[in-house]
C-alpha cells in the first residue's frame, strides 16, 4: 500500500464483507499531541478470539471457511503503525462487530502519507451502496480546528427509494465528500 487511505479502504472492505449495515469511521489528527488516528467501527459478523488473533498474523486467511476473509491487509496496516511508534488495536465480538483503532505519530519519518481519503470513502460508499457509512474527520492544527461529518443515513432520508448509485447522486456524493475532506486540510499533514 502506498498510503494510509488505501489501508483504510482495505479495512472498510473487511467490514463490508463481514455484512455490516453501518460502518463508522473517525479520523483525527491532532498536531499538538502529534497523533493521527483512525477508528473504524462496524456492526458486522465479528470474530471469535481465535480468528481475531489470527487476523493480525501474516499469511492467515479464513477464505476456506468463507466466513470472514482477512489476509495480509491487517498485518501490513499494523506493521506500518508500529513502524512509526504508533499503535494498533482490534477488538471484536462474534455477532456484535469489530472495532479497529490505529494511531501514527504525525511527524515520524516513516509515516506514510495520508493519501486520498475522499477517493477511499467514495469508493466504499458507492461500492457498497446498501451499507450505511458515517464519517467524522477532526483536524486540530496548532491554532485551528477543522471538522467534517458525512452520513449516508441523512442522504437516504432525502432520497427515499432512489439508490446512492443513481448517476446524479454519485456526482453529488463525489462533490460533497471531495469538498468536505479538502476543507479539513488533512491532505496537508
Amino acid at each position, binding site marked *: 500500500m502506498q498510503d494510509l487511505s*488505501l489501508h483504510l479502504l482495505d479495512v472498510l472492505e473487511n467490514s463490508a464483507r463481514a455484512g455490516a449495515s453501518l460502518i463508522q469511521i473517525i479520523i483525527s489528527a491532532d498536531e499538538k499531541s502529534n497523533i493521527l488516528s483512525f477508528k473504524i467501527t462496524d456492526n458486522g459478523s465479528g470474530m471469535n478470539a481465535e480468528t481475531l488473533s489470527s487476523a493480525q498474523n501474516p499469511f492467515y486467511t479464513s477464505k476456506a471457511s468463507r466466513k470472514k476473509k482477512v*489476509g495480509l491487509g491487517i498485518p*501490513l496496516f499494523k506493521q506500518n503503525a508500529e513502524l512509526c511508534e504508533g499503535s494498533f488495536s482490534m477488538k471484536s465480538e462474534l455477532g456484535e462487530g469489530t472495532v479497529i483503532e490505529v494511531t501514527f505519530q504525525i511527524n515520524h519519518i516513516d509515516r506514510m502519507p495520508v493519501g486520498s481519503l475522499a477517493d477511499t470513502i467514495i469508493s466504499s460508499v*458507492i*461500492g457498497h451502496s446498501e451499507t450505511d457509512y458515517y464519517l467524522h474527520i477532526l483536524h486540530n492544527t496548532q491554532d485551528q480546528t477543522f471538522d467534517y461529518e458525512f452520513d449516508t443515513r441523512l442522504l437516504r432520508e432525502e432520497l427515499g427509494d*432512489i439508490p446512492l448509485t443513481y448517476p446524479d447522486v454519485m456526482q453529488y456524493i463525489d462533490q460533497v465528500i471531495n469538498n468536505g475532506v479538502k476543507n479539513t486540510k488533512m491532505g496537508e499533514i
Partner: protein
Amino acid sequence: MKTLADLRKIREKAQHDMKLRNSGSRIKIVVGMGTSGIAMGAREVMKTLLNEIATRHIVDVIVSQTGEKGLSSMEPVIDVIEEGKETITYGNVNPEKAKRIIAEHIVNGQPVTDYIISRD
C-alpha cells in the same frame, strides 16, 4: 456548495427517469477490492468507472466491490455481469482500459476481447 436540498431535486428527476425506463439495473460491474486489488490500483479503476457512469448518465448499471478471487497476478480485476449472458472477467485493468470497457462493452454491447481473462 451542495446541500441536502439538492438531493430533493435529484430525487424528483430520478423518480421521473425510473418511471420512464420501468426497469432495474441491466448490468452489474464488480470491482475486485481485496488487499492485492487495492495495492494494484483497483481504487483508481473504481473511480474511473463511477465517473464514466455518472457523466454518461448510465442509469441501469450498478458498480459494486468484492474481495479477492484468487486472480492476484491479474489485479485489478473486474466482472461484468449481465442477465442471460456469460459473465466476463477483465484483468490488469487500469483507468484507460476501464474507459474503453464502459464505451465499448457497457454502452455498445461489444466486450473488449483484448482485456478478457475469463468467461463463464
